[in-house]
């Protein structure tokens, strides 16, 4: 980590300086590629994940087309398997997790009063590793020939990859290998991000920003990051074992040699259930920021919401067997996990009541962020209630592997997480672009998506209770499934239409000349005290925090009668642009990209050619060593 003062004549050092010079020009593409600025990384995360969202959505539409009528022939069974596997994998690992990471990146340093995250270059590495893994995973579509002839090469074992579906015997070809290695690389990216945000939140808070003054979103980021730190290694081991089974004929999940498919399920869900909360806690954090702003009231029962979030984080480790009731683990195990699953509903319920309490009696401003947040609460509650049904063992035996389960987790992950992420997009868009998203178009987007969502997923409760199995490519006439499936398909296309409204809104709003105010919603947290877009150094001076809702309390105080009145203007700092001179910011660096770029090469080599393994490993090594030698900040 020591600095290296290269002699002036060294051509390598000169080349490095030249390439760094390129990255200093803030309008050049190189400045984005080499950026270590948490806001730019956040934007890149958001845009990339949204593109993957459209891709995963397109896959879902193909599935829905196939299921729109009985005995349809849009897809054959093999294509159907590959598409639902990629749909699930994409939405979990390439959409909801990175969209949450986008918000972590954009908001956490601003909310705690810091100039960047603790390890800016590691942050850049996280993004590039995620991007490489996402491309690698999707490249698997092309490995079997022409995809336009229907020769899809993607993995076909489901996003859960149950053994023995993933063995060489039942899934020949390399699709599953791409899936394993893609998820391993995504795990590296998530872990790097998880470490970074835990350290950032614990260590980089502005003076006075005690733990119980932190905005709720920061708390939820902390809990989520800790879940990532502890859950990812478990799936990493499971994936490695599967990789050794497939590439080197090991026996971990080979039943002929005594291996147990149950081991896979235990390890997958020991990771998988914390993962569910990794997906939903950031969404809860976003909603907990938006509701107080649009209700003009502080969050109701702040400590309860914080500790409920922490309790959910802890309890998420003790419920994984509810995914495995029907594997025959015995009455005691299933009952115990049934009870723990019921219990985890308690802190979740506490949160829902606190959100309602926040809105109750507030002066509510019905803007798009609030609409999406209210949509989140209602949809998430419906999904939570069907979740309670699943926690009952006998009831779950009926619902296992039916569309009822599909309805349940789409209500929590789409109705929950995606609605909240859009709420966040409408709320914070102006902070990073300097332009407001059009609110009318936002409301239109909300209503089309809300109706489309319910039209898609509510009928799945019906088809599921009628016994329609998941993951089967078609169904017969006359079983009562037809109408519900047709409705679901129509709803799916409505959701797609709402995305067009959103994309139009983004383009339209970015082209508007009107600039956004720094504090358009009368916000409560520190990011609203900064100009929009936020300058690269964030804070001219590191703020001193004296209370929860730090910015709100700068703007308002109570008079003797207890009435809230605005503080006389002039207290807030002037609008003048500061050139950031004299503020030491970390320098851009290409090494995280180089280190990350070696990973997909190495992974490809493991599947096809050992020579590529050497190339990939060498590239990553060069990246890591360059990173270690290069000074983090210019002039040290």
């Amino acid at each position: 980590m020591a600095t290296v003062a290269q002699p002036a004549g060294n051509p390598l050092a000169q080349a490095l300086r030249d390439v760094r010079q390129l990255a200093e020009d803030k309008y050049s593409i190189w400045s984005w590629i080499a950026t270590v600025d948490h806001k730019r990384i956040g934007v890149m995360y958001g845009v990339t994940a949204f593109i993957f969202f459209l891709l995963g959505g397109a896959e879902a539409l193909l599935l829905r087309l196939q299921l729109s009528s009985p005995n349809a022939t849009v897809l054959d069974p093999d294509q159907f398997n590959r598409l639902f596997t990629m749909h699930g994998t994409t939405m979990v690992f390439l959409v909801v997790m990175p969209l949450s990471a986008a918000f972590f990146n954009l908001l956490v340093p601003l909310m705690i009063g810091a100039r960047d995250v603790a390890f800016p270059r590691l942050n850049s590495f996280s993004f590039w590793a995620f991007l490489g893994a996402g491309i690698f995973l999707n490249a698997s579509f092309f490995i079997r020939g022409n995809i336009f002839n229907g020769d899809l090469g993607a993995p076909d074992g489901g996003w859960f990859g149950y053994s023995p579906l993933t063995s060489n015997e039942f899934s020949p070809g390399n699709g599953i290998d791409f899936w394993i290695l893609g998820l391993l690389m995504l795990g590296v990216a998530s872990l790097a991000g998880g470490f970074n945000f835990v350290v950032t939140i614990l260590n980089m808070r502005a003076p006075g920003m005690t733990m119980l003054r932190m905005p709720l979103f920061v708390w939820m980021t902390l809990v989520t990051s800790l879940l990532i730190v502890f859950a990812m290694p478990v799936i990493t081991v499971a994936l490695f074992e599967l990789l050794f089974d497939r590439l080197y004929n090991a026996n971990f999940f080979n039943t002929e040699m005594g291996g147990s498919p149950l081991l896979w399920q235990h390890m997958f869900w020991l990771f998988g259930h914390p993962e569910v909360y990794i997906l939903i806690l950031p969404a809860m954090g976003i909603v907990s920021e938006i509701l107080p702003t649009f209700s003009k009231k502080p969050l109701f029962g702040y400590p309860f919401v914080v500790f409920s979030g922490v309790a959910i984080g802890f309890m998420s480790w003790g419920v994984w067997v509810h995914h495995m009731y029907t594997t025959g683990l015995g009455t005691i195990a299933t009952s115990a996990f049934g009870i723990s699953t019921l219990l985890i509903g308690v802190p979740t319920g506490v949160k829902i009541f606190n959100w309602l309490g926040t809105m109750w009696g507030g002066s509510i401003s019905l803007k798009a962020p609030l609409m999406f947040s209210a949509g989140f609460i209602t949809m998430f509650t419906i999904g939570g209630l069907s979740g309670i049904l699943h926690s009952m063992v006998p009831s779950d035996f009926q619902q296992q592997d039916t569309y009822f389960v599909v309805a349940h987790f789409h209500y929590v992950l789409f109705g929950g997480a995606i609605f909240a992420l859009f709420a966040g997009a409408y709320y914070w868009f102006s902070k990073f672009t300097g332009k407001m998203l059009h609110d009318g178009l936002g409301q239109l987007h909300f209503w089309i998506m809300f109706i489309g969502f319910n039209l898609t997923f509510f009928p799945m409760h019906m088809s599921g209770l009628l016994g329609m199995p998941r993951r089967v490519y078609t169904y017969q006439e006359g079983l009562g499934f037809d109408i519900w499936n047709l409705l679901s398909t129509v709803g799916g296309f409505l959701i797609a239409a709402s995305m067009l409204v959103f994309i139009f809104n983004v383009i339209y709003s970015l082209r508007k000349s009107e600039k956004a105010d720094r504090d358009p919603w009368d916000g409560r947290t520190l990011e609203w005290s900064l100009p929009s877009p936020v300058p690269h150094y964030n804070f001219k001076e590191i703020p001193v925090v004296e209370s929860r809702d730090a910015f709100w309390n700068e703007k308002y105080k109570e008079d003797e009668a207890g009435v809230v009145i605005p503080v006389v203007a002039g207290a807030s700092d002037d609008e003048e642009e500061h050139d950031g001179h004299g503020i030491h910011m970390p320098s851009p660096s290409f090494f995280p990209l180089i280190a990350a770029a070696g990973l997909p090469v190495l992974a490809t080599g493991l599947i096809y050619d050992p020579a590529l393994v050497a190339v990939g490993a060498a590239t990553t090594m060069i990246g890591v060593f360059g990173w270690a030698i290069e000074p983090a900040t210019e002039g040290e």
Partner: protein
Amino acid sequence: MAHAETGQLETSTGIDNRKLFMWLFLASECLFFGSLIAAYLLYRGQHDVPCLGGDLSACVFPTDRTINGVEYEGIFDIPFTSVSAFVLLMSSVSMVLALAAIQRGNIRAMRIWLFTTALLGALFVGGQAFEFTEFYREGLDLDTNLFGSTFFVLTGFHGAHVTVGVLVLLSMLVWSGRGKVQQKDSLNIELVGLYWHFVDVVWIVIFTLIYLIQP
């Protein structure tokens, strides 16, 4: 350059960012090795399942055992592995001495102890390579039985961790040789030490659970 990454001089907890990072990383590693060890222990009772080709006589077992009246000789060489475990344990001592040396400002002594640590680590990895080769020659491979799969993957990942540690130690040695590691950089050595001791402790757990305690 203790806080060069951030430009801030003090952290909220008073713990250096990089040190907190290392502790979190090691916490995460606990679950990594925990999962591997759990898989080994779960399958430990299953070694009697016939080996490749359905033939029990083609099996290789970790320790002596009798199945259906036939005796099978165990493959573990406890004295040999005890020696290499002792070598790894001693490398933790030299690591501590390296840190103490740099904290006193004695760079020369630090270099000697870093070199000793790397050498002992390399010796351990060499011993493992020898052990793996021996086992392979006696018929144990990844696909032989569950013992082969779980043993090679668990101890292999541990060996990979030691190897990474040796590479980092050697890098430190090279940098210090160019005068880039001074007393003020002692945190770097402390972080390497944390990682090194962790890998050592993991070996104590593996050695005890896999080699010493037999069902």
